[in-house]
């Protein structure tokens, strides 16, 4: 991914295509009698996602079979937050998707970094927190309160862990 564009079979005649300025109907260069949709590639400046572990070179073991490798391929700068940092990860040690360090620019040690979502194999989504988040998102006022409590009002990741991660999730990781 991250190539200039990809051909797509589909979308012709839809209202989706009308709104997508990054997709066009063009002649097939190898057979001009037939037209096809091409989609311009998404090339984000930065991608950031969470994984299970990284080694010191930036090789990643996602812990699950992930689509995020496409993000790593497509983005110009790739930041991966991880539950743990270990000495060495090879494709053989990797659980689930392996992302080689050549695609990764930065790693951040951030235990429970997926919270309130889950990290496959380690901890489940925090359903109580998720429900509170959904409730808070229903008005601008309550959402700002949520942001104040869990994002802007917090000075460090450790503080977030102490305040927001319930004990039953903490118990799942040593």
């Amino acid at each position, binding site marked *: 991914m991250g190539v200039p564009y990809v051909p797509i*079979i589909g979308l*012709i*005649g*839809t*209202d989706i295509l009308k709104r997508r300025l990054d997709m066009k109907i063009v002649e097939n260069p190898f057979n001009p009698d037939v037209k096809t949709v091409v989609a311009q590639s998404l090339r984000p400046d930065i991608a950031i996602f969470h994984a299970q572990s990284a080694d010191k070179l930036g090789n990643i073991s996602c812990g699950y079979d992930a689509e995020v*490798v496409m993000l790593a391929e497509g983005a110009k700068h790739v930041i991966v937050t991880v539950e743990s940092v270990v000495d060495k990860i090879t494709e053989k040690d990797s659980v689930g998707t392996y992302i080689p360090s050549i695609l990764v620019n930065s790693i951040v040690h951030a235990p429970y970094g997926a919270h309130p979502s889950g990290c496959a194999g380690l901890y489940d989504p925090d359903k109580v927190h998720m429900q509170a988040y959904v409730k808070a998102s229903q008005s601008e006022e309550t959402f700002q309160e949520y942001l104040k409590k869990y994002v802007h009002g917090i000075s460090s990741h450790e503080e977030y862990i102490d305040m927001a991660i319930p004990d039953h999730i903490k118990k799942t990781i040593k």
Partner: protein
Amino acid sequence: MMTTNMNTYNPVELMVVLLSREVRDNEISACGALSHIPAAGMLLAKELHARNAELIILNSIFNPFKTSRQFHYLAQRGELGLFFVSGVQIDQYANYNLHQLGPDHAQPDVRFPGGYGGGLIYYAARRSVAFRTEHTKRSFVENVDYISAAGSSPEDTLRLGGPSKVITPKVTFMFNRKTNRLELESIHAGFTLEEIVNNTGFAVSNEHAIQTAEPSELELYTLRNIVRQRMINTNTYAKWAENSLN
């Protein structure tokens, strides 16, 4: 419950059986997320007439792929024989709408999650069978409010397949590739043409409509025993199977 001289079955079981008959042996069939009825239909076909069919039921153990990229390119290569799809609205041209309701696209009355890959697979799978559990004038309309996928497209555009049938609790429509419109193929037992006309938002042509072949004893037995248990054991819409297939 429908009662006929032979068997009693519920509308869900009827739809599962009708969808299962669309699955062909030695072909790859697939359905997307939240597709209980097609999932059961595919598993039923595999027990009966399509023992060598390959099935892809997303978000279940019946999926050979680890990433959606692999599924996407399988379909784009033209290797997908049959895809099951649903829409909030379906129109006379077999366009379907999974996105939003209301005349103004910028200010929709209702917004739905949309369809992830249906707008691609409807063009790439050799056949698509659309299903809808509600057969009313609000679900079967003259023109959908928003086209998530189009039933047909211009001759000079690359398309590997398209809709073949639309199945509801009342009828089966067939897609006529010459006129690019849906035609009544068959009416399920217990319904009259008048009821169909009164509950369909577009003009129903009935020249060739016959009565739908009812679920057989073998189909119902296999569904209620083998398929139901298989769905429970493999955690494939297990709760739904437990409650709906009996």
